[in-house]
């Protein structure tokens, strides 16, 4: 019998069309697998009844010949997308009881395409974190284990850690994520998945709990590049309700995979050879370069001279925007309220109790950077450096069509590691943040396994609005790498 939780989305769509199985059957198989995988804590809110209802409706649509692009495919929705009548928390205490009265544009598009929602995926508190250890609802555990014998629980990466863990553990066929500085690409790398963040403006931000508005962008996780392309297709498109959403035609992303990389120029930015990078990450990168060369791409050296300033730029701009966005949580209109003697103390009590430590740290940094006397020195300065970083990419793309880099400076680490020093944790995103600051599309694909048997990711960065080339290069890497490893903990009921 077909293993209903271990197919790609593309295979499942074919099977549904051939009547090999129904959406109700696939959905039920995933619900059973979720029950067996509770220990991963990948979901904050599971919605099995809703999923089965959606699946039954999907089966009816398909029988009537009205199936949408993703009809009947069970997915996980990051708990940052507002979903009508389904609690949406952004993994924060401040929104622990928030039940949206409206549907985000991206989740609505997926419903319109016929997707079945298994539940709301765990994440870092307000999407702030690189390890999914800041969630109000507990850590997400990676389904992967190192082969060093000590069986330590590993992080799935963050902030979209629940989405990545769910897809990797076969308790969702694909999942949505959001990426502000690497929150799709880094967890995709840690969990052995394909994860794409499109160009800023490709997906509507309407109904996504805001972190840093000039950086936040929705994207997709799949177990292969094609699945990520298919999911992204249905998420993308112009939305008049988001003023930064681009009024551009969405290309055929999955169709782009048919092309090869012959003659494409792939840039290798020399500044990404940072000091102290582990040997196996350098080797991964060199292997990726060799594979693309073998596939007919031309490798060119490029320079992104302001790379080293991307991280400090991000850690001014993102917290500054966050401190402004998160000012809305005041205990009055929605979410947590902790009463005080007067209005000010109600605000202060509510926010002290509702936000986790990392969120408070970032609000504090942002408030400081925007405060009188420091605004020019920090915030305006960071915006200027941001332009120089973006200009670096524009220059590089005069010489190449896409860039290849590692996704993260290491494989997944154990829960609790890197927590003593926030700056050390921030270094996880050193390779993903520059593209975020420039608003560029980026994707992580599995590049191989570390010496400890853990997935490592390669990142492809493209020109603005050129997700097609990113996907094509990702696809070429995927074919060459032939990544077949699966995590140790798969949410399958023993037969």
């Amino acid at each position, binding site marked *: 019998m077909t293993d209903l939780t271990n197919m790609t989305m593309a295979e499942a769509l074919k099977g549904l069309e051939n009547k090999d199985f129904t959406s109700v059957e696939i959905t039920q198989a995933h619900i059973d697998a979720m029950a067996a995988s509770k220990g991963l804590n990948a979901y904050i809110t599971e919605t099995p009844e809703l999923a089965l209802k959606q699946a039954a409706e999907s089966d009816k649509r398909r029988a009537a010949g009205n199936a949408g692009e993703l009809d009947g495919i069970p997915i996980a929705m990051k708990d940052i997308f507002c979903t009508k009548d389904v609690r949406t928390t952004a993994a924060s205490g401040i929104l622990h009881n928030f039940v949206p009265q409206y549907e985000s544009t991206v989740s609505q598009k997926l419903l319109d395409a016929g997707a079945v929602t298994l539940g709301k995926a765990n994440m870092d508190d307000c999407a702030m974190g690189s390890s999914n250890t800041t969630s109000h609802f507990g850590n997400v555990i990676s389904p992967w284990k190192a082969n060093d014998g000590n069986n330590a629980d590993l992080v799935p990466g963050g902030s979209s850690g629940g989405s990545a863990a769910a897809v990797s553990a076969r308790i969702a066929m694909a999942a949505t994520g959001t990426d502000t500085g690497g929150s799709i690409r880094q967890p995709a790398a840690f969990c052995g998945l394909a994860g794409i963040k499109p160009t800023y403006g490709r997906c509507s931000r309407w109904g996504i709990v805001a972190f840093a508005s000039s950086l936040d962008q929705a994207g997709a996780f799949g177990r292969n590049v094609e699945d990520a392309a298919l999911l992204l297709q249905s998420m993308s498109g112009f939305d008049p309700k988001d003023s930064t959403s681009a009024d551009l035609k969405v290309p055929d992303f999955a169709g782009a995979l048919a092309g090869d990389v012959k003659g494409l120029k792939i840039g290798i930015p020399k500044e990404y050879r940072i000091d102290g990078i582990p040997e196996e990450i350098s080797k991964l990168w060199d292997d990726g370069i060799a594979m693309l060369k073998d596939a007919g791409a031309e490798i060119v050296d490029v320079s992104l001279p302001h790379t080293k300033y991307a991280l400090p*730029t991000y850690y001014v701009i993102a917290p500054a925007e966050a401190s402004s966005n998160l000012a809305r949580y005041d205990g009055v209109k*929605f979410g947590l309220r902790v009463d005080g003697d*007067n209005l000010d103390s109600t605000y202060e009590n509510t926010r002290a109790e509702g936000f986790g430590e990392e969120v408070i740290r970032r609000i*504090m940094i942002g408030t400081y950077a925007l405060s009188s006397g420091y605004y020019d020195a920090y915030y305006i300065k960071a915006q200027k*450096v941001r332009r120089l970083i973006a200009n670096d990419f524009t220059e590089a793309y005069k010489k190449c069509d896409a860039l290849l880099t590692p996704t993260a400076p290491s494989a997944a680490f154990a829960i609790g590691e890197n927590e003593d020093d926030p700056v050390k944790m921030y270094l996880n995103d050193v390779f993903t943040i520059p593209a975020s600051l420039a608003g560029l599309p980026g994707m992580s694909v599995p590049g191989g396994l570390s010496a400890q048997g853990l997935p490592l990711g390669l990142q492809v960065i493209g020109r603005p609005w050129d997700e097609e080339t990113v996907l094509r290069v990702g696809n070429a890497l995927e074919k060459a790498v032939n990544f077949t490893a699966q995590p140790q903990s798969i949410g399958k009921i023993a037969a």
Partner: protein
Amino acid sequence: MSLTKKDVAKVASLARIKMSDEKLEALVPQLSNIIGFVEQLAEVNTDNVEPLASVVDINLRLRPDEVTDGGYQKEILANAPETLEGYFVVPKVVE
């Protein structure tokens, strides 16, 4: 630059976050460390560089000034911690 406990207390007050003495003490080195890290931006020459506020190279759209949506009082109040007769309720502000 190194922040003092007084600096941190001021920022906490601006951000409307209640903070115990203990928390303030803990944040002083953490925030100083992060601020120290971002201060390396000072070494970048940004003369004649325009600040980049948005990577999207489009002008904001205009639409006719017409009512197109609304009438959601019930939905807007649905998640409020306290409401009364169609209003949000807060602690007394005026004696």
